[in-house]
């Protein structure tokens, strides 16, 4: 039924107005307004960066080690300075959020995550910042599209979430860079006070954060990636750090969506056995196989990782109970 509906939708889109079709034809020039919009975004981003600098400095002073704080501040400064240099601004850094007209009307809406992102795109030190800063109840929200692939992220994770006493923040802070090869950790403070499990932040986009409370040294010798899926089908990005810590940020989930399952891929300390099973793609049975590179899964709140699947000769082989039945 869904397929029929999709097809009907595809055909209905076929009937949209002529001018809409023609203006989007491949090869048509991009709208002029795009350049102007980007310039406005850049301007807003410069102000946002200055705000970030201010708030990050205040927030991290409480609990983050001096070295990391300096490192993060330097990173922010260097990106900000690049932007200022390129676009010829003086020093618009405000002393507080009110100076740039951003009020903290979203205070405490984020219980589990505060992050900000600084990205440099296409050798042009454009700075984009989006996030929610909620260090000890002081919050600001700067909207922008943070789904661009490249860039440096400054992530602040408030450990309020999950604490029964609703205690004060023990900010966990990390600088990660999203490169073509994935996330590369630059600096982080560890997760000694990370969220117990899942925290739901009711922002429009960022919906949930999962942080590992301990290094994931259980079954894995090396953790390569983590991801998750929500009850509404949304997926997450996962940030893994070399020492086994990781966290996930889920966005675009519907309000009320919950994390359903978390996946982690990496190399096992001990080989696992994938049972003999039928491979539909190959059209034949694959023999029982010993594997070390696998994906495991778990449900939030559970410490137990379950075997999920392994890639053998380019094919996904599932552990029980995911064995594909014989035709």
């Amino acid at each position: 039924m869904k397929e029929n509906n999709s097809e009907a939708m595809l055909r209905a889109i076929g009937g949209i107005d002529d001018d809409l079709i023609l203006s989007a034809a491949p090869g048509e020039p991009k709208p002029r307004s795009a350049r102007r919009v980007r310039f406005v975004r850049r301007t807003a981003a410069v102000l946002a960066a200055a705000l970030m600098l201010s708030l990050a400095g205040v927030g991290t002073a409480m609990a983050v080690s001096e070295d990391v704080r300096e490192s993060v501040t330097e990173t922010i400064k260097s990106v900000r300075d690049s932007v200022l240099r390129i676009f010829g601004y003086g020093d618009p850094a405000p002393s507080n959020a009110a100076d740039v007209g951003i009020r903290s009307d979203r205070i405490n809406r984020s219980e589990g995550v505060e992050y900000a992102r600084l990205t440099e795109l296409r050798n042009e030190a454009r700075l984009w910042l989006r996030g929610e800063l909620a260090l000890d109840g002081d919050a600001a929200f700067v909207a922008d599209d943070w789904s661009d692939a490249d860039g440096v992220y400054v992530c602040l994770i408030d450990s309020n979430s999950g604490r029964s006493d609703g205690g004060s923040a023990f900010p966990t802070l990390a600088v990660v860079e999203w490169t073509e090869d994935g996330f590369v950790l630059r600096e982080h403070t560890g997760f000694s006070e990370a969220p117990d499990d899942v925290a739901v932040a009711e922002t429009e986009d960022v919906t949930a954060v999962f942080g590992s409370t301990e290094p994931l040294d259980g079954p894995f010798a090396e953790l390569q990636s983590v991801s998750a899926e929500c009850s509404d089908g949304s997926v997450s990005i996962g940030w893994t750090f070399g020492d086994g810590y990781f966290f996930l940020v889920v966005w675009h989930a519907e309000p009320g969506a919950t994390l359903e399952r978390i996946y982690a891929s990496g190399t096992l300390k001990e080989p696992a056995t994938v049972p003999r099973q039928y491979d539909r793609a190959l059209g034949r049975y694959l023999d029982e196989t010993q594997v070390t590179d696998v994906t495991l899964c778990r449900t939030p709140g559970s410490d137990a990782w379950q075997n999920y699947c392994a890639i053998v000769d380019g094919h996904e082989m599932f552990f029980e109970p995911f064995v594909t039945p014989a035709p």
Partner: protein
Amino acid sequence: MTDEEIVALYFARSEEAVAATERQYGAYCRRIARAILLSDGDADECLNDTLLAAWRSIPPAKPRSLAAYLGRTARNLALNRFKLYSAQKRGGSETALALDELGDCVPSSGSVEEELDAALLSEAISRFLRSEPEEKRRVFVRRYWYLSPLEDIAADYGMSRSKLTSLLNRMRKDLKKFLEKEGFHV
């Protein structure tokens, strides 16, 4: 040759109309069909069918924009052909992917096919697109009208694939909300 001149040839039942149409819009229609069918041979056949359909339908039809008229015809014919083939071979093409993606923005009714008037739905989609910023509108049409691959659209609009995916995801959700608000649901 202008659209008016070509349409005049059709009205005069001059076979030169077909040749002129092919010269002017053959590559355009072929590209649309090729994006759906992923086959040069099928695209060629689809172009021929499009030209035949134009010959049969003009007159009485008197399209204001031949490009849109022919492009729409080519797209519909290619989709028909795709549907015919999909029973035998399915998956992987941009059409199959777009069909999958568009499941997101189908209003929550039992069956769009049965319960909605396609023309009204098209009008509503046009209204929705007009309410969107120009760049987003164009990107949406490139993906779901022209069925262009994400990589091509991202390159043409200078955005990353992830940003494009995210943008389309939001638009589909917004479109669904818009359509439901417009009464396209049970």
